């Protein structure tokens, strides 16, 4: 279908917006970058749909088959699912400055056991704990990545030079906990790709680094073993580029930040983290490979 669209005849990307019938008939397409262009494209598609014979509208029989396995199948229903917003931050270090667009979005998944590990072993007020290293490595290497402008690359565990996330129980009111987090991380990639053969193998070495401070708060209900609120903020400095993240080169540097919060119920709430296919490398054996 896409081969008949705006990039027809060329090799490579099929990026863009397509309007099609359930039968697979292409009605309109384009790589619209402006709202007005996208609107015009959709109107063209709707007009083509209106004159499409009924027989040409019906669902393609191939779409009646069984859904293939998808990463969303591993969504941690009983665990902790976070959505991440990442954004460029002002160089002056003043959070009251105007926001710098764009922002981007990612998700992070943790099983119920993973989620419990964000808390100290003992849950009395004043108790402290540290996120186990393998879990911290997954959190950092796969999610604290510069993808503000485009597709970033994960860090390998060996590229996690230093970091930890500590927790402290602030309050335990009949099993309802209030928790604070603080931590830091420094990751540096300056050699060959270390994460093996997968879809992310870059075409060259991309030296890059990120150093962040982390802080946050959360609420946890011991009866349901669920976080009822969760906020983790990370701010700091990034340097370098990757193949597709829109940075200019190895010396491209600046401030950036991340906010992790509970996913909000919605049609896209179960979309998988961008590097979910690497989760198992970081100990998440509960993720089913596809």
């Amino acid at each position, binding site marked *: 279908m896409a081969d008949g669209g705006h990039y027809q005849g060329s090799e490579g990307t099929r990026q863009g917006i397509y309007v099609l019938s359930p039968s697979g008939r292409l009605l309109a397409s384009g790589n619209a970058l402006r709202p007005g262009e996208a609107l015009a494209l959709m109107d063209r598609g709707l007009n083509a749909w209106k004159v499409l014979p009924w027989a040409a509208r019906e669902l393609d029989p191939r779409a009646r088959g069984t859904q293939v396995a998808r990463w*969303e199948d591993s969504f941690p229903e009983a665990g902790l699912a976070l959505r991440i917003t990442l954004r460029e931050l002002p160089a002056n*270090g003043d959070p009251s400055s105007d926001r710098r667009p764009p922002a981007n979005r990612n998700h992070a998944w943790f099983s119920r056991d993973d989620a419990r590990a964000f808390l100290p072993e003992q849950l009395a007020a004043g108790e402290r704990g540290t996120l186990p290293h393998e879990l911290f490595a997954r959190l950092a290497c796969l999610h604290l990545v510069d993808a503000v402008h485009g597709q970033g690359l994960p860090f390998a565990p060996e590229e996690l030079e230093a970091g930890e996330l500590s927790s402290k129980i602030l309050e335990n009111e009949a099993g309802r906990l209030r928790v604070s987090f603080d931590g830091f991380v420094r990751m540096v990639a300056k050699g060959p790709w270390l994460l093996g053969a997968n879809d992310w193998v870059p075409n060259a070495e*991309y030296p890059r680094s990120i150093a962040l401070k982390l802080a946050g708060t959360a609420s946890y209900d011991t009866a349901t073993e669920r976080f009822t609120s969760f906020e983790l903020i990370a701010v700091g400095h990034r340097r370098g580029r990757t193949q597709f993240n829109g940075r200019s080169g190895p010396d491209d540097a600046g401030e950036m930040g991340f906010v992790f919060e509970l996913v909000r119920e919605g049609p896209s709430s179960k979309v998988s983290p961008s590097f979910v296919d690497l989760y198992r490398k970081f100990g998440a054996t509960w993720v089913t490979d596809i």
Partner: protein
Amino acid sequence: MKPRCEPKLESRAGSSSRSSLAGLTFGLFAFSALGCAGVGSTADELSVSSESLVQQELTEDTARLWRDHILAPDEELEWEKIPWHPSFLTGLREAARLEKPVLLWVMNGHPLGCT
């Protein structure tokens, strides 16, 4: 996924008119393709500036300020109100059931981590 070097979509799907949106079923689909030539580097200077945020203390209060700065305001999140399907197949099926065409948004790489 290995996307090609393409200008990324900067517009938000939600900024389109409601009259057009009402007539469509939505599919969000990540597209895989071969990578394009990139630029390697031998730079080894990866140090952090002493003026960087990472050198500043991150307290509960400043973390809250940065949270409010980083999170998108509601007016930038209108696109999330569109009932996107992460799976093309479910979008196709719903379109057939509703007797509507599909709006398929194909992005470079993963739909997360690449706006």
